[in-house]
């Protein structure tokens, strides 16, 4: 083996020279991974090195988990070439892993170890982990309730808003009657209806569904309408000379042409419906993440609040991501769409 490697090195001087930039390249690409690993080791050490100032049960496990993540970061980035797309994805996110590790270390030290931040209001990471392990059933129930309420209200709002928008955009008669109502009622924030809704509807659940649908419906209606109204007449002319009937003009010309506008409405509706969801849950519905937040605040359980907040942001972000994915599928024909 050693004799071979000697002759090898002598015979092929050129490849050996080119290996140095290759090595530098490798160091650069894996260097961030090593840094990420160091950051997470630091986090692990910060958990285990000092005594906690309070009484938290998950400190030890969190430290171990940090070391595991450090190991994954190290081997994952160093050996990324053998791990296919997972390795590549990890390498791309390595700078974020560094930042995250550093942030967690700082957070851990500032709260659990030296209490630089006032304690009940700024819980350490391990107490949030504790919420996820010990209060999981209640949290899951809340997630389920929120998703159910949001989904029902949103879908109703989208359906009604879309149909209304298309009708106003298409038919002058419908526009005559609906437009003033829309102008009068639409800009009202849906939460303003809250007191009325909660005593006119049979249950707080149906009241909240109505409010979410309302918050969703307005932007969807307006943007669908403006989308349909702005479809170029040239498209209708083409379709009509080719023998299109009115139903074809609506379904195959007006709606597809208006779809980019409709999606703007869907995004706006999603945003405003989240706001209504949380408020409705805090005030009326005795379930869901909004209610959980309220409840946690009542008990001064700040760790539970942060835990719920994190879950909530994951859910909202997930919903937006899903909507983007649907849009990208339906609007492949558009050029230059924004990547979420």
């Amino acid at each position, binding site marked *: 083996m050693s004799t071979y490697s000697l002759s090898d090195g002598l015979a092929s001087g050129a490849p050996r020279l080119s290996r140095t930039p290759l090595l530098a390249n490798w160091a650069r690409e894996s260097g961030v991974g090593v840094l990420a690993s160091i950051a997470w080791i630091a986090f692990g050490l910060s958990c285990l090195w000092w005594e906690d100032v309070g009484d938290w049960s998950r400190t030890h496990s969190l430290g171990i988990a940090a070391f595991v993540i450090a190991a994954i970061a190290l081997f994952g980035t160093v050996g990324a070439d053998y791990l296919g797309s997972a390795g590549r994805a990890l390498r791309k996110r390595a700078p974020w892993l560094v930042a995250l590790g550093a942030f967690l270390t700082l957070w851990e030290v500032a709260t659990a170890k030296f209490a630089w931040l006032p304690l009940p209001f700024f819980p350490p990471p391990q107490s949030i982990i504790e919420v996820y392990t010990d209060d999981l059933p209640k949290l899951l129930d809340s997630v389920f309730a929120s998703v159910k309420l949001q989904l029902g209200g949103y879908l109703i709002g989208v359906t009604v808003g879309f149909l209304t928008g298309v009708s106003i955009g298409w038919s002058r008669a419908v526009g005559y009657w609906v437009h003033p109502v829309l102008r009068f009622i639409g800009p009202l924030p849906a939460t303003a209806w809250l007191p009325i809704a909660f005593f006119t509807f049979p249950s707080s659940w149906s009241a909240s569904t109505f409010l979410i649908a309302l918050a969703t419906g307005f932007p969807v209606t307006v943007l669908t309408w403006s989308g349909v109204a702005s479809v170029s007449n040239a498209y209708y002319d083409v379709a009509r000379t080719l023998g299109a009937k009115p139903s074809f003009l609506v379904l195959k010309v007006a709606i597809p042409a208006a779809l980019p506008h409709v999606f703007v409405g869907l995004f706006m509706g999603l945003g405003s419906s989240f706001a209504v969801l949380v408020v409705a849950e805090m005030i009326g519905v005795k379930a869901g993440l909004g209610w959980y937040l309220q409840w946690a605040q009542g008990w001064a359980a700040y760790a539970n609040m942060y835990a719920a907040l994190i879950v909530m942001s994951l859910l909202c972000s997930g919903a937006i991501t899903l909507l983007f994915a649907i849009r990208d599928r339906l609007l492949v*024909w558009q050029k230059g769409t924004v990547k979420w």
Partner: protein
Amino acid sequence: MVTAALAEAVTHPAAGAALDIEQVSHAFDIDGTELPVLSDVSISVEPGEFVALLGPSGCGKSTLLRLVAGLDKPRAGRLREDESRIRSPHPSRVVVFQDPTLFPWRSVWDNVALGLEAQGILKSQRHRVDDALDLVGLASFRNAYPHQLSGGMAQRVALARALVNDPKILILDEPLGKLDSLTRITMQAELVSLWQRKGFTTLLVTHDAEEALVLANRVIVFSDRPARVKADIRVDRPYPRHRGDPYLADLRRQILGLLGLDATW
């Protein structure tokens, strides 16, 4: 009744229809003032004729084509296709507009399929879409979207979208305007051979006197706005025609003279 006529158009591909434009006048209201665009235009087109319409820009050629298509109604006068009044659009008269106006949300294939789909006969007639795409040489772009096409390619897709319907009257509004001169000459030859094979009546608006003379049986020259028929010239020459033909060159000089260009020619 409409469906019967449709079925007929499909099974016996179009011998062309006659077109009668009788004393048609038209005007637009722009900010309350009336803008006369067509003034007492009468043209009678035989079935299967190829008529080219020439005239200065903005004189009202596209407007006349919209009336023939049935998209607008004339202020005065009548239009008839084979003795029946033209009141609304019908797929027996298909228009290729000045802009290709492809539907950006549909692939090339789906754009060409538009007419058959609108008439509810796409399922049984899918091959016609493929044939039309072959004809304009864009079979390999069937899955592309309009924004991925060049201007000339888009124009060819628009042509295919019209031809797939086997129209009795084909209405062309400068369909070759955006093509480069080579593609243009090829497409002109295609158009003539297609017209000879299928026998549809053709109405072609063009700016190009030479194009009109190479393609048409008859060249109609319009005046400035409001458009009146200034001259109706028969072109009795067999196809394929040659651009250098002295007879055509003579007619061309005559036409350019009518359009006010005698000094240079």
